[in-house]
């Protein structure tokens, strides 16, 4: 039943295509010169039907449910709902819906049964209405398209116009989604700032988001200074980079310049597999293998090591970033023209000298761009740190201590029973906003550097 409008649409599209194509052909057969090829005439008709009718169907299906629910609820006998709250009203509606599907629990009231049959009746009617509307609209558009077929109708331009319109629409969707995210984030952040002053949030040295949820609860007043949290993120990021940058770079250099071709054919795919490992798995690796190892190693030196160190979380995150950096560096190195390598070798440079004096400087901007993108990934990485980093915000840069990160705090603030009007939950949005701003800034810088580097050899 619900597939019928779509089948109808497909039929109409095909019919429109054939109709216009045949019409155009007959004009051509009469001996007139067509401006556009006959297939463009067909396509024009097909697109002219497809786009509006499909939009219409989708909107209809989206609105049908809520509108009918409203109608049913409005049609209930007076006083049936009584003084119930919004939640209870939802329950009644759900009950009516399951009744209409034939699932009867116990013995429902008379008015609910009546409402249920009203509901299914409305749905049936709406389905038929949709089919009729689709048919009518399709016929109308088919007629419109057919009327335009003539020797000098610019069907190709028409098709190109519609297609480029569709492409614009698709890119606009992405942009508007981003804008929507920013707007909702800013809105919640502003609400948060009503509870906590901006200066305290930005420059406060304490992060203790435990506030009383009920009047009678005993808890601290809560402190919302993001600095210790952000510092934790930075510590873990730095640890991750210390692991990832040298290893990634050297593996890229080795693969690019020194590795025999057979080895390269094996190692490169392996690195790419490493990039595909889910971060949860890295998280397991961090808590089960790396953290205990670091702990026992540290203790054997007599060091005081926390069970969930920044070192473990950051180190494993670094492993996650290795393929990212090495593939960026590999691309940057391969982009250096072969003539430059030959030039250096031809002057009697060894491969190592060629690498360090010509190849590496020439590829440096691309490599830096890749590292910056890795930084913004490390800052935003969530799963590994949720599993392997701590929860308490501490103002420390000791990698053997336990630190928390912005993403961890966002997760812990938002899980569990929360209502969206106290500063504790709103703080998550403020943190999210800051994270967004920081990574945005880093990405902009990275993209600028990468773009500049692209121009270097043109």
């Amino acid at each position, binding site marked *: 039943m619900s597939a019928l409008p779509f089948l109808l649409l497909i039929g109409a599209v095909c019919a429109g295509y054939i109709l216009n194509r045949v019409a155009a052909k007959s004009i051509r057969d009469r001996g007139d010169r067509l401006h556009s090829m006959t297939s463009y005439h067909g396509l024009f008709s097909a697109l002219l039907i497809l786009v509006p009718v499909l939009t219409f169907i989708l909107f209809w299906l989206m609105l049908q449910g809520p509108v009918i629910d409203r109608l049913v609820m409005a049609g209930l006998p007076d006083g049936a709902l009584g003084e119930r709250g919004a939640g209870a009203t939802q329950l009644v509606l759900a009950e009516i819906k399951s009744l209409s599907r034939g699932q009867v629990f116990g013995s429902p009231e008379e008015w609910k049964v009546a409402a249920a049959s009203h509901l299914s009746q409305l749905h049936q009617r709406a389905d038929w209405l949709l089919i009729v509307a689709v048919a009518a609209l399709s016929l109308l558009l088919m007629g419109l398209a057919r009327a335009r077929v003539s020797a000098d109708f610019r069907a190709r331009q028409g098709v190109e116009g519609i297609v480029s319109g569709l492409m614009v629409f698709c890119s606009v969707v992405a942009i508007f989604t981003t804008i929507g995210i920013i707007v909702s984030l800013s809105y919640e952040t502003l609400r948060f700032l009503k509870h906590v002053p901006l200066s305290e949030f930005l420059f406060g040295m304490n992060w203790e988001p435990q506030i009383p949820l009920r009047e009678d609860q005993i808890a601290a007043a809560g402190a919302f200074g993001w600095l210790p949290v952000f510092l934790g993120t930075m510590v873990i990021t730095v640890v991750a980079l210390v692991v990832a940058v040298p290893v990634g770079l050297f593996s890229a250099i080795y693969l690019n310049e020194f590795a025999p*071709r057979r080895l390269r054919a094996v190692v490169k795919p392996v690195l790419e597999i490493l990039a595909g490992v889910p971060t949860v798995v890295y998280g397991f690796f961090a808590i089960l293998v790396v953290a205990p190892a670091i702990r026992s190693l540290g203790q054997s030196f007599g060091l005081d090591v926390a069970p969930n160190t920044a070192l473990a979380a950051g180190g494993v995150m670094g492993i996650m970033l290795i393929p990212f950096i090495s593939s960026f560096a590999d691309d940057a190195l391969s982009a250096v023209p072969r*003539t430059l390598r030959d030039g*250096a*070798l*031809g*002057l*009697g440079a060894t491969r190592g000298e060629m690498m360090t004096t*010509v190849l590496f400087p020439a590829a440096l901007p691309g490599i830096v761009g890749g590292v910056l993108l890795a930084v913004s990934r490390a800052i935003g990485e969530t799963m590994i740190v949720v599993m392997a980093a701590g929860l308490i915000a501490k103002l420390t840069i000791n990698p053997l201590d336990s630190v928390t990160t912005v993403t961890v705090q966002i997760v812990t603030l938002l899980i569990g029973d929360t209502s969206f009007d106290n500063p504790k939950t709103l703080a998550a949005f403020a943190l999210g906003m800051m994270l967004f701003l920081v990574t945005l800034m880093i990405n902009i810088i990275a993209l600028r550097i990468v773009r500049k580097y692209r121009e270097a050899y043109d």
Partner: protein
Amino acid sequence: MNDMRKIERDVKMTDTKITARGVNVHYGDTHAIKDVDVDIADKTVTAFIGPSGCGKSTFLRCLNRMNDTIDICRVQGDIRLDGQDIYDKRVDPVQLRAKVGMVFQKPNPFPKSIYDNIAYGPRIHGLARSKADLDVIVEKSLRRGAIWDEVKDRLDQPGTGLSGGQQQRLCIARAIATEPEVLLMDEPCSALDPIATAQVEELIDELRRDYSVVVVTHSMQQAARVSQNTAFFHLGHLVEFNVTDQIFTNPQDSRTESYITGRIG
């Protein structure tokens, strides 16, 4: 009388800088150079001519072992520089390339300053003892490359910012700065306009005083203008090798004649 003749022969002997005997080159299954024998004389310009794909670049790259950098390339045969087998195990290709410099078809200045481009070779080979030394080498090389006047006020600017012709002369100057004994040039003028070409040709003629120069070229006129000896390659064979005048006025092989009169190409 007898003595005189002996001396003359000795001069001829030492005059030969590079001797190649029975050189064969394969790229995988492609047989690119087939049994080539050639003698490159010192302090002369030798031109390699021949239709595209006949193996001129390949043979040129054998002379400084640049073919080593191509995985699938195999070189067989005997190539001697001053009597020393350059494919001998004891010869370091890196040192060989310092002695046998190369200029490529496409100008390839490093994305560094003009000064650093020229100083590149002297630095990696430790030719300069001090900064002042290096300055002297850079200026001398740029002068010999006939580009000093154009760049002397902007030595710290990137070499990639020069025009194509200037870049090519920069690359030649860069090759000279390493003080090679032989200079290989693979179509050095193919990216240049007639004026820059004339400058480079003049430069090549100049270089003949100190170096042995090998030039690959597609221009018969260029070969005739700058070279003393000419080698004609065809399908991997060295068809004819002789004094340039002879090749162009009185070719022995019919293929050479067809090529220089424009019938094969």
